[in-house]
């Protein structure tokens, strides 16, 4: 009788271990699938930034809302009539300017950087790049 009871305990333990392993696997899969996101938001943000750089001119930005403009326009007044993308290429204050317009708008959500013609305008941590958009332009 005692031998039978011991073997019964071992088989039952197997069954309970199987349930435990299944629960761990099921919860892990569930959490992983539901928490993994996609890159749609990053796609739209980057697309909109590129469009804004091509469509908006520097002078259209309010100097009151962007005091950094004064720094950009010092000794570089011709930048005022340029589109933002061209302005970033021609001024050495592009990083300050870009951060003032875009980074502060999304700082609580995303880190991103701008690179024009292999020149880093705004630096980001390259080790965690999840998306990259590129566009040909002239300026």
């Amino acid at each position, binding site marked *: 009788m005692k031998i*039978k009871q011991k*073997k*019964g305990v071992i*088989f*039952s333990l*197997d*069954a*309970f271990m*199987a*349930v435990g392993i*299944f629960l761990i696997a*099921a919860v892990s*899969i*569930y959490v992983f*699938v*539901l928490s993994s996101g*996609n890159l*749609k*938001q990053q796609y*739209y*943000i980057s697309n*909109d*930034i590129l*469009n*804004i750089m*091509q*469509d*908006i001119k520097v002078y*259209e*930005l*309010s100097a*009151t*809302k*962007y005091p950094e403009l004064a720094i950009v326009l010092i000794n570089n007044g011709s930048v005022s009539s340029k589109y933002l993308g061209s302005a970033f290429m021609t001024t050495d204050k592009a990083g300050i300017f870009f951060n003032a*317009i*875009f980074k*502060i*708008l*999304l700082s609580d*959500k995303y880190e991103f950087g701008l690179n024009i013609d292999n020149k880093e305008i705004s630096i980001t941590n390259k080790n965690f790049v999840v998306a990259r958009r590129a566009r040909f332009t002239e300026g």
Partner: protein
Amino acid sequence: MSKRGQIWYGDFIIGLLVIIIISVAFYYVLYDIGNANSEISELELNVESLSNNLMSDGYGSWTTWSSGNKDYDGKIGLVKNSKIDVNLLTKFRNLNDYAFTKRMFGLSEYDYSAFIIDKNGVSTILAPFLADETAISNAASAIRLDRLVYYNGEIVRLNIVLFKK
């Protein structure tokens, strides 16, 4: 000679029950994941479509009347060349008919709202007839999509929300 059973019936029954329970539970977990994913996909598709509509310049008069009945004409859009057009925004606000705008956007199952958020985090509802954050916070499910656009001298976030009550 005593016969010895190959199995202990009690353990066999327990093991069989455990397998059945695990199989049923596994099926429901997979089914639930599939359901959750499809609802999220549905929300994503609709919020993208809505955001693309709002970010377009639209066309048509938006409303048309025939025999005293209001019908829609064209497509609602608020943005031209990355800028929220003030005239189009005023026209949208003057529609003052949430259900009508929902029909124009092709939203049947979902409700929507939109906010303009500036760099200081100040949020302004796009039109007075849209749901505010309190209504959205009580929704069963909601998804948000941010778009960037020029408005009133600065670059702002157009925060578009799609939710299900």
